[in-house]
């Protein structure tokens, strides 16, 4: 065998070394993802699923959070929710030393509802403004200095930390407009936060519509708006919507923008329990990410709070995964249907 010269051996060594560095970096990502999913999945499923039929902890999914009372009674460990504890006291007429643990009984139903409301409202808002702006940028505007400046502004907006959006929303909507902590303030704050993503995605989808369709339509005597409405937007819209579904995951997941603008740590009424319909927009709501934040950092930790934390995180993860999955399925369908 011919001995390789020393410099060749060295370069071979580095080639193998770098290969392993890259490989390990990739596996590290996998390891982290697996750990997170397994940890939340295993611990969370203990809360969400039950051993008996219907196998799903419906109480957890359909009830508001309550305070948990834990005490010993005749050597038996009792875990009762707020309401159950009061009933128990009435029937037993006894005073017991009970430890109360906030939020650890009941469920997360109002949080699911609140998050859904926040997502729907802010997405409608962001889609309306975002698609309009994208149409202007891609179809109407010419590449002037102002437009270039606007594009830079959009890119910068995408890089603004979400807590800054939260403070901005707090200052403008909550304080200056006097909307208080409300759905409306949350919608606008979250909507503005994902606006850059929506504009960028919409513009890409619009630009993907072949120029020939526009020219063909214009050459038949269509106005620019007729062309956009009948011959550009319909083909861009599925793409816009599918890429926006990923925006939903972000809106649902952010805590910082809503903690000052829309989220309550605890609220007894459901959002539809309002006296006037206009009050609907000016009420704060509970939200999943904020609830997880509250039970994980605002109250003393113990085994009972852990149940809620992991349960809520598990439900949250499933919801976001479902949304992302829908997006992927829709996009694949879309790609097969419209290929130029």
């Amino acid at each position, binding site marked *: 065998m011919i001995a390789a010269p020393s410099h060749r051996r060295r370069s071979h060594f580095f080639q193998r070394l770098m290969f392993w560095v890259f490989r390990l970096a990739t596996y590290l990502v996998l390891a982290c993802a697996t750990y997170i999913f397994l940890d939340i999945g295993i611990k969370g499923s203990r809360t969400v699923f039950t051993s008996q039929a219907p196998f799903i902890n419906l109480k957890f999914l359909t009830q508001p959070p309550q305070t948990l009372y834990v005490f010993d009674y005749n050597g038996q460990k009792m875990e009762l929710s707020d309401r159950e504890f009061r009933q128990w006291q009435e029937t037993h007429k006894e005073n017991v030393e009970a430890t109360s643990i906030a939020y650890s009984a009941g469920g997360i139903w109002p949080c699911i509802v609140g998050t859904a409301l926040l997502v729907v409202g802010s997405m409608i808002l962001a889609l309306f403004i975002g698609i309009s702006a994208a149409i202007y940028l891609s179809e109407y505007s*010419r*590449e002037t200095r102002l437009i270039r400046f606007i594009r830079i502004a959009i890119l910068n907006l995408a890089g603004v930390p979400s807590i800054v959006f939260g403070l901005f929303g707090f200052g403008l909507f909550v304080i200056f407009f006097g909307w208080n902590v409300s759905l409306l303030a949350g919608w606008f704050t979250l909507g503005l936060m994902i606006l850059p993503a929506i504009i960028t995605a919409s513009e890409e989808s619009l630009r993907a519509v*072949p120029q*020939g*369709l*526009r*020219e*063909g*339509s*214009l*050459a*038949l*005597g*269509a*106005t620019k708006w*007729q062309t956009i409405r*009948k*011959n550009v937007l319909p*083909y861009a819209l599925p793409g816009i919507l599918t890429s926006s579904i990923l925006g939903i995951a972000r809106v649902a997941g952010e805590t910082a923008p809503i903690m000052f603008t829309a989220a309550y740590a605890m609220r007894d009424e459901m959002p539809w329990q309002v006296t006037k319909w206009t009050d609907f927009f000016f009420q704060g709501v509970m939200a999943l990410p904020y609830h997880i934040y509250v039970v994980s950092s605002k109250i003393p930790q113990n085994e009972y709070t852990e149940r809620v934390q992991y349960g809520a995180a598990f439900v949250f993860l499933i919801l976001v995964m479902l949304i992302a999955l829908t997006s992927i399925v829709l996009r694949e369908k879309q790609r097969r249907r*419209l290929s130029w």
Partner: protein
Amino acid sequence: MVSAIDMPQTMPQEVSPQTDQPAEETETARVMIAVRDLDFAYGSHQVLHNVRLEMPARAVTAFIGPSGCGKTTLLRCINRMNDLVDGARITRGAIHLDGIDVNAPEVDVVDLRRRVGMVFQKSNPFPKSIYENISYGLRIAGVNKRSRIDEAVEKSLRGSALWDEVKDRLDANAFGLSGGQQQRLCIARALAVEPEVILMDEPCSALDPIATAKIEELIHELKTQYTIITVTHNMQQAGRISDYTAFFYLGRLIEFGSTAKIFTNPSEKQTEDYITGRFG
């Protein structure tokens, strides 16, 4: 070349002995489109220089010349498709459609494009049904009566010799048609709005010889009712389908005359070189 530009190819009052004057040949030939001393530029880059040309009605005029010579640009000036291009503008001269300056402020570009239809190099059917492709132009013009649209769809599909091939599947997506059928569909789409002029920008460049032959045949039939202006790279095609030919080189009109004259006895050496293939 300078002499060629100075020569009044298209001015009837100054008939030059070398250039053939199509308008003089037939007494009835009405001038449909007149290009008057046109200069055109994309930004600071001038692409058309002093083009003078009169295209008669109900005849086929072919623009020939090497790539980048400005034929397509001139074609797109006629229905003002160049309005879509940033920085593109006519710097001098004018184009008259049936006596009306197409760039005059009172001319509505929508009306202009309804009178001047266009067929593009790459067939661009809309991703809709065949029926909707044809009815599109009528609907945007405000025609909603189903019977009238049905009638127009059949008429234009017959007009583009596509009716027999697609009459049983009008609701099928236009993308399912072959390339040649798609291009004929685009012609039918243009016919549906009943234009006076049809501009064709290399309508056969992406088609096979059989589909090309069909389109050429179609052009031959259409010229009895429409003024057709077509850009082509194919010399034989220009010879086959057109009545008049304009040869462009580097943004200038070198020669314009009846196709027979241009192809058999061109006045300019450059024209002859190009047609015979001796051109660089």
